[in-house]
C-alpha cells in the first residue's frame, strides 16, 4: 500500500521540476524553453499564464506539487502509514489540481490556440497522481465485514 504513496511522491517531485522549469523561464532565469513546436513560449507569454492576472500559473504548480510532495512523504512515515486522512487529503488536493489543469488545457486549446508540451506533461503527471491517490484511498477505506 505504501507503493502508491511512493509513486505519488516521485510524481510530485517530477511535476515540481516541470513547474519550476516553466517558472524560471517566466522570470527570465532560463533563456528559451526546450519545446519543438514553439507553443510553450506562446502559452507562457500569453496573458492567461497569470491566473486572474495576479499569480503565475507555473508558480501555482510549484506550490501545489511541493505541498502534495510533503504530504506524500509525511504519509509514508510509520506513524501515519495506517491512517486514511493523508490519502483523503491527497485525493482532495489532486482532484482540485485535475480540475485546474482541465481549465488550463481548455485555455490552451480554445483561447490561446497553442499547446505547451511541458503543460501536457504536467497534466499527465497530475492525472497519474489523482489515479494513485484514489487507489490509495480505496485501499485504506474500512472494508465491509
Amino acid at each position, binding site marked *: 500500500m505504501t507503493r502508491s504513496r511512493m509513486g505519488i511522491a516521485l510524481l510530485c517531485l517530477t511535476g515540481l521540476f516541470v513547474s519550476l522549469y516553466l517558472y524560471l523561464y517566466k522570470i*527570465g*532565469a532560463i533563456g528559451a524553453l526546450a519545446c519543438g513546436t*514553439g507553443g510553450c513560449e*506562446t502559452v507562457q507569454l500569453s496573458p492567461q499564464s497569470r491566473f486572474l492576472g495576479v499569480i503565475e500559473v507555473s508558480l501555482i504548480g510549484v506550490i501545489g506539487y511541493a505541498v502534495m510532495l510533503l504530504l506524500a512523504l509525511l504519509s509514508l512515515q510509520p506513524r501515519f502509514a495506517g491512517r486514511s486522512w493523508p490519502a483523503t487529503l491527497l485525493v482532495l488536493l489532486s482532484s482540485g489540481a485535475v480540475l485546474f489543469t482541465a481549465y488550463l488545457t481548455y485555455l490552451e486549446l480554445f483561447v490561446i490556440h497553442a499547446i505547451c508540451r511541458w503543460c501536457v506533461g504536467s497534466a499527465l503527471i497530475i492525472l497519474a497522481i489523482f489515479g494513485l491517490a484514489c487507489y490509495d484511498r480505496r485501499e485504506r477505506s474500512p472494508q465491509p465485514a
Partner: protein
Amino acid sequence: MAQAQTGMNKFYLVLGGVAVIGVGALLYLMGKPKSVSIPVDVTVQTADTAGFRGYLLGSDTAKVEVTEYADYQCPVCQDFETIQFPTVRQQLIETGLVRWRYRDFPLDMHPHSRVAAHAAACADEQGKFREMHDALYRNQAQWSPMRNAAGAFSDYAKAAGVDGAKYDACMSSAKYAGRIKASFDEAVKLGAKGTPNFVIGGRLYQTTMPSDSIRAIVMRALTAAAPAPAQ
C-alpha cells in the same frame, strides 16, 4: 520489518536521485548562455501598440511621411540601410521634408529576424534604437549565418551603451513580441510582399529603391500637398 525498511531506503535513494538530476538540470539550464526565442503566434494586445506607430525619425511637422517595412536579416534591406539610407537621411529627413517611420516586417524565411527586431525594441527602451538598428544592419553578414545570434545582439546592444542587465531581462521577457506581430500584420494588410517595401504619400511601393527614386516620389508628394499659388 527489516524488509519494509529496505524498501523505504530504496525509495529514498530513487527520490534523492531524481532530486539531484532535476536540480542539476535546472542549474545547467540557468548557467547556459541564453538563446532567445521570440514567439510568432502571439495575440496582439491593445497595450502592445498603444502610443507606438513605429520608430520615427525626422520632424513632426514634415509634410511627407515615409514608412519602411524592413527585415534585419534581409540582404536587400541591408543594402538599402547602409548605402541608400544615409543619403535619404541627409537630403530628406534632416532637411525637415520627410518623417521616416521604420516598421518591422520579419519574414519567416529568416530565422533571426524576429529576435533582431526584438533586440532593437529592447535597445529602444533605453533610447538606443538607432544605434542598435545601425549595428544590426552593419554587422548582418557576421550574425546572419550564426546558429544562435542572441549573444551577438547582446554585444551590439552593450557596445551601443545599453544597460546589459535591463536588456537581457527585456529579451528574456519577449515583451515586444506582440508589437512586432502587430507591425508584421500591418505590412501584410497593406499588401507588402517583401522587404524593404515603402509607403510614401499613402502609396505602397513593393520594392527597394535608390535614394534618387525616393527623393523623386517625395518631391511629387510635396508638390501635390502644396497649396495652389494664388492667382
